[in-house]
Structure formats: C-alpha cells, structure tokens
C-alpha cells in the first residue's frame, strides 16, 4: 500500500528546517543552516529540502501533505494588538516591522507556495497546511515519546501568542489546556538576560547557562520581586516596565539597567563578578518557575509522564533538576526542542490529529537517536579526498575503532564524522569533536585552539550508558545530551575552596577535569549500542585502554559556524583548526601527514555568535 508522506517546514524566524515522515514514521530531518553554512539560518529551507528529496530519492509531487509549523495570521494579530496596546510607544518598531510583514510575512502562504513551485511547478496549494507554533512543539515532544499518555509542557520565546503551554497527550491526540501569552515569556525573560550579559539573543542562551555556575544567585529575589508577578501555581507575568522587546529593538531598557546598577555588558568585553551573579540569579529564577509550574501540574493532573519541548527545554540544568526532583516518573525531551523541531512536530500533528491515524508507540526511540539527517558513503568521501589530494588511510571499522581510541588516549583531538547527521543543536557522535576527558589541559586547548571560543565554557561527556551511574548521579538515560548531572563523589578530587573566577574551570576537580564544570556538574550524553553502535564501540575501546568509559564530545564546528554537514565541511574545519585527526567514515586523515596544508583563516570566516 502506498505510504503517506508528510513534509514539515519551519522557516522565516530562526532555525529553519525540514522534516519528513512516512505513515507516521520519522524518516528524515535537517536544518537549513547545515547546508547554507549560516548559523540559525531562517530563510526558506530550500537547500535542506533539496537534500531531503535527494537523500530519500523523492520528487516533491510524491509528498502528500506539506505543513508549515505556525500560523502567520495569528502572529500578525498579535503584532497588531501589541502595537495598539503600547501605542504610541513602539512606533519605530512598527515602522521597521510593518514593511516586512506587508511585503512578505503576511503573504507567507503565497511565499511558501512560490518556493515549493521551484521544486514542482504544478504544486497544488491544497496540499499545504498550517499548524500552530506551540502545538508543533507539543507534537514534537509527545508523538515520538514512548508514552501512551503524558503531560506536555512547552516554553519558548514566543510563537503566535503563546509563550508557554500545558497540554495532555493521549494516544493520537493532544489537547492544549492552558497557555501563557506574549509578552510574558520564560524564553524572552532568559533572552533579556542573555542580551544584558552581552550574548546574542536566540543564540547565546546556552552561554548564559554555562556562565551561571561561576556566580551566586544574589539577585534572584530582586528579579522575582521587580520583574515578575509569580503565582503559587508557577504562572507569571513579566513587568513590561523593565523590558523593551515589545516596542523597541532591544531586550531590556534603562530601568532594567538601573535595577542592576550597571549598563548591559558589551559583547566580547571582560566579565565582572556581577555578570556571573546575574547569570546565576536568572538561572535560579527560571529553575524555580519551571519547577513550581510542574509541581503544580503534577498535583492537578496526577499524570506520571512528562514531555518537554520549546527552546526552554534546551536548558539542560533545568532538565537535570526536573529529573532529580522526581516530580514525574518519566520525562522525555525532544532533542530538537527549538524551532527547528517544529517542522517535525507540525508533520506529526497533521498525521495524528488531522488525518486521525492510529498511534503505534515505539519504545525503542522513534527519533532514531536523532540520527535522521544526511549521510555520505565511503565512495563519495574517497572521490572528494582524491580530488583534494588528501593523504589518508582506510581501515575497516574494528581496526578504525582501535586506532582512534588509542590516539585519543595519547592526547590527540579527533574530528569524528560518521553515518547520518544529528537533528537538533547537539552533536551526538555523528558530527563530533572528541578527545580525552582525563587530560587537564584539554578544556583550554579545545576552547582556544580548536573551537576559538570563550575559555569559560565547559565541555560535555559521552558516557557508556551502562557505566553512567558509576560516574554521574544520574538514574535515567540522557541519549540527547539534554540533562546536567553531578559527578559521583568518588570521582571528585578535593580542592581548596576558593572564590570562583573564570579560571576556576582550569582547576582539577575530578578524574575527568575536562568535562567537569566549576560546580562539579556535566551535561551528560549516555551512549547506547542500539542507536549509536560505532560510537559506543569507540568509547568502549577507550574504556579498555584507560578505565574511563567516557569521552569529551563537542560539536564539530568552530564558534559561530553551523555543525559540519558534508565531508568537505569537515575537511575544511579540520584543516582550519588545530584538530589532529579527521575520521570520515572509514577514512583516517592525520594532520601531520598532509602535504597540502591549506591553513586558511578559518577562524574569521564565521561571525561570532
């Protein structure tokens, strides 16, 4: 019987992406940024769509339904009502945004149809549907989860109106029960502080999260009392007197700066103690709000499973606390929790809610480990390497694993490119840079010489799933690197208690110093053999050599660059950085044996994030 294919699209705001499902099975998904090489690319995902069709050997007319992840009219309604509510304030923003809406965004349907017609001139517009932003997030969290019934919590900056929603997923249906609307938003609150601390909004939020452990939450009460009206059930309102995002071009205003007695930190300038304390404070506030909401929901609905999505679900520290507090028996988080994942959610929502198809629950990870992007064969890679006159060796997988594990144990840093690319912001062992976590200088080396990024930022470990509870206080799996957990006490090294500064990260505080953050935590990825066999075997081999069942795993890119997608991207990044070894499927390329050293000015190719 012919399979029903649904294409999901997210675009025009940030992180545009495409996703394909066939009879409800997740087949393929990838972000446009990986192909266009523009971080957080928001344009129509034409390259990603082209690759989706090529990889799956399809033409657009073989796709039955196409669904966009949100509703532009609803968004326009929010925009108009916001301008009216704040008028005459916000006129400048109105002058700026209205032309964009009147030229393009209001006519999104036509724009999408025009783009699709470039792939299929006879594209029928009746095939095109529109989902709602937070329904797309909720669907991306619930349908791939292993739960028959679950509470669904989504939170991000803003969709159409909603910024936070609560729903119940049961079999093939999702019912959104409650929502908090713009301008009150957990995501925008966090982004406001991201801006204030000098990081890029919609991009630097995870840096704020990484900075938080250096500070003390001295300002948490101030934030709660001045910026928020927080109710007992966790619902909240933001005091717009302190924010500029509804009517202006900045996230915060002068009143906000006066509250903290400091102007916003200039990007790339040095950090003061207050910046770290503010980062710690907002992280503390977000944690307490989310926990309060979830505790109240658990009491109200007595459902034991929880699904999470939306940008706030990428806050791994919050996720770690949700696990630790055991508010819910089981938690499942969509790995592409941001807007890119909306493409997948929209497609799933159409299949189950509009077409009313029966849901078959897959207990073995229907996200397929998030390895649902493109892959490249050994033949393709060989052709490319030969054209570039690269010196390489080719090893069969068993020998390759032994070779690479040994090199890592000797301190080499490896670019690891295998199988299908990950969907979502994390590299999970398909497009990763891997190294030895025992090496005390590795954190500094990776940050400054490989990734060219800020020295305070920690690295994450990939640990064998069956060994994770021996190293971390983690009693669940974290295959998507979305949970922060503390290291076990017996893995820690006693250090003298001193005041935390940015250089504290260089102190040896555990047996694996390069993945241990200043508060003895790590963002853990548990690796299992079924979804990630080769990577699992590699860590196992490293375990054999070193008695340490974990590796440093950081995304295969430099600061500001999207994660590498193709072998060419990987080779360019390899040659432009201080990586020692590049592994492309079965091919091994060592830096010191290359004649053709194309030492390009790679570092400056990408604008800072």
């Amino acid at each position, binding site marked *: 019987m012919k399979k029903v294919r649904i294409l999901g699209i997210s675009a025009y705001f940030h992180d545009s992406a495409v996703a394909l499902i066939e009879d409800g099975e997740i087949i393929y998904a990838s972000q446009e940024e990986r192909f266009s090489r523009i971080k957080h690319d928001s344009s129509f995902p034409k390259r990603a769509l082209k690759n989706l069709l090529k990889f799956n050997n399809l033409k657009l007319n073989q796709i039955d339904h196409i669904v966009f992840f949100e509703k532009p009219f609803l968004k326009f309604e929010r925009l*108009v009502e916001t*301008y009216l509510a704040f008028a005459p304030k916000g006129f400048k923003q109105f002058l700026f945004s209205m032309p964009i809406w009147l030229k393009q965004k209001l006519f999104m349907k036509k724009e999408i149809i025009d783009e699709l017609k470039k792939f299929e001139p006879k594209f029928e517009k009746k095939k095109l549907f529109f989902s709602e932003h937070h329904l797309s997030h909720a669907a991306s969290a619930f349908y791939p989860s292993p739960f028959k019934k679950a509470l669904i919590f989504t939170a991000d900056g803003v969709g159409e109106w909603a910024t936070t929603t609560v729903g119940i997923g049961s079999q093939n249906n999702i019912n959104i029960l409650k929502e908090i609307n713009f301008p009150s938003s957990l995501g925008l609150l966090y982004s406001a502080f991201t801006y204030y601390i000098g990081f890029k909004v919609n991009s630097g939020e995870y840096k704020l999260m990484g900075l938080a452990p250096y500070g003390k939450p001295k300002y948490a009460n101030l934030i709660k009392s001045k910026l928020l009206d927080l109710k007992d059930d966790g619902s909240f309102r933001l005091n717009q007197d302190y924010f500029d995002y509804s009517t202006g071009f900045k996230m915060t205003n002068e009143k906000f700066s006066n509250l903290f007695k400091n102007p916003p930190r200039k990007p790339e300038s040095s950090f003061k103690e207050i910046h770290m304390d503010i980062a710690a404070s907002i992280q503390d506030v977000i944690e307490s709000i989310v926990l309060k909401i979830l505790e109240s929901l658990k009491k109200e609905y007595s459902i034991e499973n929880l699904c999470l999505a939306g940008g706030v679900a990428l806050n791994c520290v919050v996720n770690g606390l949700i696990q630790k507090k055991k508010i819910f028996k089981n938690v499942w988080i969509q790995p592409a929790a941001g807007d890119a994942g909306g493409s997948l959610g929209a497609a799933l929502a159409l299949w189950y809610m509009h077409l009313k198809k029966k849901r078959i629950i897959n207990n073995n990870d229907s996200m397929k480990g998030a390895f649902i992007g493109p892959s490249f064969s050994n033949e393709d890679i060989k052709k490319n390497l030969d054209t570039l006159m690269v010196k390489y060796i080719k090893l069969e997988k068993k020998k390759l694993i032994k070779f690479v594990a040994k090199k890592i144990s000797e301190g080499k840093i490896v670019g690891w490119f295998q199988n299908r690319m990950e969907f979502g912001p994390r590299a999970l062992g398909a497009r990763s840079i891997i190294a030895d976590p025992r090496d005390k200088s590795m954190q500094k080396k990776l940050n400054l010489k490989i990734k060219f990024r800020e020295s305070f930022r920690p690295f994450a470990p990939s640990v064998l799933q069956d060994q994770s509870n021996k190293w971390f206080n983690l009693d669940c799996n974290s295959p998507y690197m979305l949970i922060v957990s503390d290291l076990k006490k017996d893995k820690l090294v006693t250090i003298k208690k001193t005041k935390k500064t940015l250089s504290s990260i260089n102190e040896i505080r555990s047996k694996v110093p390069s993945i241990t953050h200043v508060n003895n935590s790590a963002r853990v990825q548990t690796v299992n053999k079924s979804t990630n066999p080769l990577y699992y075997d590699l860590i196992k081999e490293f375990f054999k050599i070193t008695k340490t069942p974990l590796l440093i795993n950081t995304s295969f890119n430099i600061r500001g660059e999207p994660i590498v997608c193709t072998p060419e991207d990987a080779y360019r990044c390899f040659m432009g950085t201080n990586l020692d070894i590049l592994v492309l499927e079965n091919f091994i390329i060592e830096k010191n044996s290359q004649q053709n050293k194309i030492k390009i000015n790679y570092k400056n190719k990408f604008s800072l994030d």
Partner: protein
Amino acid sequence: MIDFLKEFFTFLIQRKKFWLLPVIILLMIFGSLIVITHGTAIAPFIYTIF
C-alpha cells in the same frame, strides 16, 4: 490577492476579531505608505500625524 483576502476574512471571522478590521485597514494604508516610500519622504509626516 483574492485568495489572500478571503483567507484573511475567514480568519477574522473565526477569531471573532471584527474590531481589528478597521485598525488593520488603517495599519495597512500606513504600512503601504512606508513600503512605497521606503521610509523616506513621507515617513516624518506619518510620524507627526501619529
């Protein structure tokens, strides 16, 4: 354009937001002026009458 207008009115009916209609028409007129003028000659005039 006709399709767009049809869909937009259906949207207003579904959302029961008829009161938005005159506001949107006004906004569209001013917005169109901005588009047409690219925020140059007429922009200061628009600002003063607001």
